[in-house]
């Protein structure tokens, strides 16, 4: 497909494009909401601010993506409608993003795996055949580089730290690793976007992601867990039990007080 086709999808492709944008946006929004839960509870004031800054960057990425998805969809849904008025099965974030914060090490590992993934993804998307998505990605890449520096710094610090921090962060990695296979498992929508030049081929992206992850894990003296056969499909709307509660909390206010403003 030509670059022009990537820029302006016909109506048949539009729905797929909107769905793909929602995958990206929902992953950022759900992760931002999780990080926001740390505000006032992080192990140190400085970490509190660091996590909140990352959350706000992610929220900004989600807003740009939602606004674009809403325009493309043409059904009159703005970013608020997409974030607050869809239900659990409509959310297309990867399952890893919705996993609970757990302890600080769990949060750091979840963040690291997703930061490395989003950085690879947005680096590629800067060259997307969809120019608006490419522009959003170019902004996101600068933020993601810092996020990854922050989270990988903590993975190394905890992994190569004390006996206890090493044991605990190893357990976090074991627990969260099974959710990473979804990141690289291409489904019909991924393949459609890839062949249109809008999004990357996931298997190639996975190899680059794995190299990035392995480098940090080696420095952190952590062993990469073996892959497990079970696959999650949050990106198709089939989620773990954790997303419903997150959405209930996040969507309560705009649903009860529709149209409320500051």
């Amino acid at each position: 497909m030509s670059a022009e086709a990537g820029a302006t999808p016909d109506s048949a492709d539009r729905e797929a494009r909107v769905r793909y944008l929602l995958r990206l946006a929902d992953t950022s929004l759900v992760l931002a909401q999780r990080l926001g839960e740390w505000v006032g509870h992080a192990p140190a004031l400085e970490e509190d601010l660091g996590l909140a800054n990352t959350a706000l960057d992610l929220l900004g990425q989600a807003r740009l993506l939602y606004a674009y998805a809403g325009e493309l969809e043409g059904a009159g849904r703005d970013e608020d409608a997409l974030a607050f008025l869809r239900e659990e099965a409509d959310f297309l974030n990867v399952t890893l993003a919705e996993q609970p914060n757990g302890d600080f090490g769990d949060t750091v590992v979840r963040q690291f795996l997703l930061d490395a993934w989003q950085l690879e993804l947005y680096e590629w998307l800067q060259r997307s055949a969809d120019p608006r998505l490419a522009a959003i990605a170019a902004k996101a890449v600068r933020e993601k580089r810092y996020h990854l520096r922050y989270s990988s710094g903590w993975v190394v610090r905890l992994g190569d730290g004390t006996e206890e921090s090493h044991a605990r962060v190893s357990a976090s990695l074991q627990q969260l690793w099974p959710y990473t296979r979804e990141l690289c498992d291409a489904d019909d929508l991924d393949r459609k976007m890839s062949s249109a030049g809008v999004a990357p081929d996931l298997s190639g992206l996975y190899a680059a992601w794995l190299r990035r992850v392995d480098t940090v894990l080696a420095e952190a003296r952590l062993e990469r867990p073996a892959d497990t056969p079970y696959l999650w499909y949050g990106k198709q709307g089939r989620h773990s039990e954790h997303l419903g509660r997150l959405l209930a909390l996040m969507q309560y206010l705009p649903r009860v007080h529709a149209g409320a403003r500051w």
Partner: protein
Amino acid sequence: MSTERDWPLYEIFIRARGGLDHKHVGSVHAADAQMAVEHARDVYTRRNEGVSIWVVRSADIVASDPAEADALFEPARDKIYRHPTFYDIPKEVETL
């Protein structure tokens, strides 16, 4: 939030724009210097305050003793002629 600290304190200096000096803005706790830079970035530059960060372990700063303030600074107090305020400045000089 935990108040128990075993991270050392770092003093933070921020350069607001190219060409200006780094100015002391405050301090953060951090496990190492790299973390101190990241904390300083998150705490002190989130409103676009800076283009460069210096961090220094607070323990590495040698300070004058406040008890000796008189001995150190009193001798300069009556030497106002050291300020260049006794010159007539020509009107044409605008930005002195």
